[in-house]
């Protein structure tokens, strides 16, 4: 097990390096530079490029970046918060994104599981159709429509929740964004849970548990759910990464100082260091969560515990 994790970590380092290199090459190809305001003269642009080392060949910059990165220096922002060290920016924004993402994952998974289970139990019933309906709606409406509708009704009309994020009330002020973000997760989880539970519920060991006289609540939670979990966490994993890194629109609507808006803004205005750092962070999270999921597979299903085995999906 430890060897396995170490091996995966080793691979992850290589993967991350490749990603970084790819990013550098891509940014090189990207149009414009961080400093192409109408007002800037060519000469001044050259001065700026020289100051930030943008006049160097890509490869030198890459090597330089890696070196700096190893000492915790991710460079400074060129545009968004001029000259601000990226590490400070991430440090400030990441916890917020993670908190809201985590809440959304939790909420989405809980409700999604609930809906999926009910639908599977009442297969081909009204509750089942309702779940299908909800999960289709959940994926076909963009989250910002939910977000604004929630703000409008729950925040503005009913005044139940604050409209804007406030670091002084980190829970109450994140209720609305959490709900808006979790819709897609609810939909996806509900759908997968449903189909997976239908399969599990028709399996022999569930029959056996029934014939042992296990009550329905225990039957579902202890026996069925755990066996249905593998495909569910498989689809959940990328969603978790996406949620943790935050969403541009949701962050904009609720004035959340998160990572998601940072990346999009940075890409639009060529704030290279921010792009690289956030992408890098994203990749790390992605790889880490994938690794976590692989390990989780073994925890959930002891058959996969040898860690060498194939994972689902």
């Amino acid at each position, binding site marked *: 097990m430890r060897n396995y994790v170490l091996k995966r970590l080793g691979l992850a380092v290589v993967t991350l390096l490749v990603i970084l290199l790819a990013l550098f090459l891509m940014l090189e190809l990207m149009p414009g530079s961080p400093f*192409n305001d109408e007002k800037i003269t060519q000469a001044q642009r050259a001065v700026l490029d020289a100051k930030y080392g943008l006049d160097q060949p890509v490869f030198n910059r890459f090597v330089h970046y890696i070196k700096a990165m190893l000492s915790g220096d991710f460079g400074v922002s060129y545009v968004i*918060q001029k000259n601000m060290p990226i590490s400070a920016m991430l440090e400030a924004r990441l916890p917020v994104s993670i908190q809201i993402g985590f809440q959304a994952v939790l909420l989405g998974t809980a409700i999604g599981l609930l809906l999926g289970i009910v639908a599977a139990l009442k297969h081909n019933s009204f509750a089942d159709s309702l779940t299908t309906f909800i999960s289709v709606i959940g994926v076909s409406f963009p989250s910002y429509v939910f977000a604004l509708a929630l703000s409008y009704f729950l925040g503005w009309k009913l005044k139940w929740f604050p409209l804007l994020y406030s670091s002084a009330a980190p829970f109450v002020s994140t209720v609305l964004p959490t709900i808006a973000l979790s819709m897609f997760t609810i939909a996806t989880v509900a759908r997968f849970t449903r189909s997976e539970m239908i399969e599990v519920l028709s399996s022999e060991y569930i029959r056996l548990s029934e014939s042992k006289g296990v009550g329905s609540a225990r039957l579902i939670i202890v026996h069925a759910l755990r066996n249905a979990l593998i495909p569910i966490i498989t689809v959940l994993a990328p969603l978790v990464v996406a949620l943790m890194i935050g969403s541009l629109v949701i962050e904009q609507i609720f*004035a959340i100082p998160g990572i998601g808006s940072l990346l999009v803004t940075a890409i639009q205005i060529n704030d290279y260091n921010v792009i690289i750092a956030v992408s890098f962070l994203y990749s790390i999270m992605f790889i880490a969560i994938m690794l976590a999921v692989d390990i989780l597979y073994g925890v959930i299903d002891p058959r996969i515990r040898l860690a060498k085995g194939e994972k689902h999906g």
Partner: protein
Amino acid sequence: KQGSGTTPASTESPSAPTASAAPEESPAAAKVLNLGKDVELASMDSAIATDGLSFEVIAATTEGLYTIDENRVPQLALAEKVDLSEDGLRYTFTLRDAKWSNGTPVTAKDFEFAWKRLVNPETASEYSFIAGVAGLKNADAIIAGEKSFDELGVKAVDDKTLTVELECPIPFFNSVIAFPSFFPVNEAFLKEKGTEYALTPEALLANGPFKLKTWEVGGTTFYLEKNNDYYDAGSVKLDGLNYKIIKDTQQSVLAYENGDIDYVALSGEQIASYQQSPEYHSVLTGFLWYLSPNQKVPGLENINLRKAISLAYDKTAVVDEILKDGSIVADFVVPQFLATGPDGKDYRETAGSYPSNNKEEALKYWEKAKAELGIDAIELELLFEDTESATLVSQFIQSEIETALPGVTFTLKSQPKKNRVELMYNGEYEVGLTRWGPDYNDPMTYLAMWTTDNPNNFGKWSEKAYDELADRVSRGDLASKPEERWEALKQLEAKVLEQAVIFPVYQKGNAILIKPEVTGVNLGSIGGSISYKLADKQ
């Protein structure tokens, strides 16, 4: 309520107790203005900042030699007295007694340091060009790397006296140096903070009405509290300014209605629903939005085609039906309220007026163009940036032109702003919807753009006579003959419009809502930013 100005001044103004208030737990008694903004505070370093909000906040915490009042007139601020030499090339400023928020006095050295820092290549200021605009001696050469930044024509004679030398007389010098790039910087403090300087409230000094109290990295709020060390602290009535960054406009309007913020900028369709409200204000800015035809594109070199296009769309509908934010129809190049002539009148009052929208005329020009070009249809691409208003305006213009000029088709190309600028900069476009904001209060801030070598002459229109006249106006013989210069400027503008070098569309207005209990805000004007110095909240 059109135009720049202030909200109604407070009638009685007993200055409130100045308990400093933190943003979140502001006691009811404290007068804190909550402001909704849609961009982050990018920089508090006056040499580094480039955007409106940064300049606004820098101006709220720091003062320079001049400030621009609500009538767009530069007023002495930190400078107590100014002497101008006969030849108009040497200014001597005497400073008033003022203190930084750490207690050290503001001296002439701080100005010298700041100005030299602005042009110092190590600073890599994106706004260094403004030193050249201000005509500071050697500025252009320093920026071009030909001279050392030490040779800039500014010198602190003693703590209270600052002398400035110019290359040539600059009629609008006073208003240029009111710009935040020319604000003082305390050298000792900056050296002490090193790379940290201006990144946190602790690494920042204030000498203006407010000082930065909290500014979380990446936070969506930051808070300015009243600066009791400000020399004019007595007239500051607010206890603080609480900025909230809300990027989604619908949400910020909801927040405004909820009472979370006292000030919000409107956009898009929201404007229509608040236009009748007493809380609605609109402020005309100096931004001119115009279409730039690229002369290098086959067809567009034809003046008749250009004229046809420039007359073919209804600008009134653009400002009244689409923007509705107080923007005005622009049939001109030099915006309204930008510059006042030697006669004390606004440039536009005496400058010529030009045809706006005339579809029949347009069609005639198009017929001529067709004959000259030997074509009967042309397809052009309209490049614009991906903001809501630019998108709507472009779609509207496309539709107008296509209906007015049968045979002309426009395809639309939307790009993020940076890309749009880059493409136009490189001449990789056909027709582009772009804008220009003034750097100083003089028509040349616009008219200089269509000289042959100007990098912002995206369309690459070029005429020798124009270049020569422009040169005389800015640096040549006309620079010291105000009336003649003024007439020459009008000629330049007339040329641009007659040649249809650009197709102006509108001069941008900003629509905002301010709570009725808020008074005394200087909503800013062309060339100066919003000022809260005299604001009050009942």
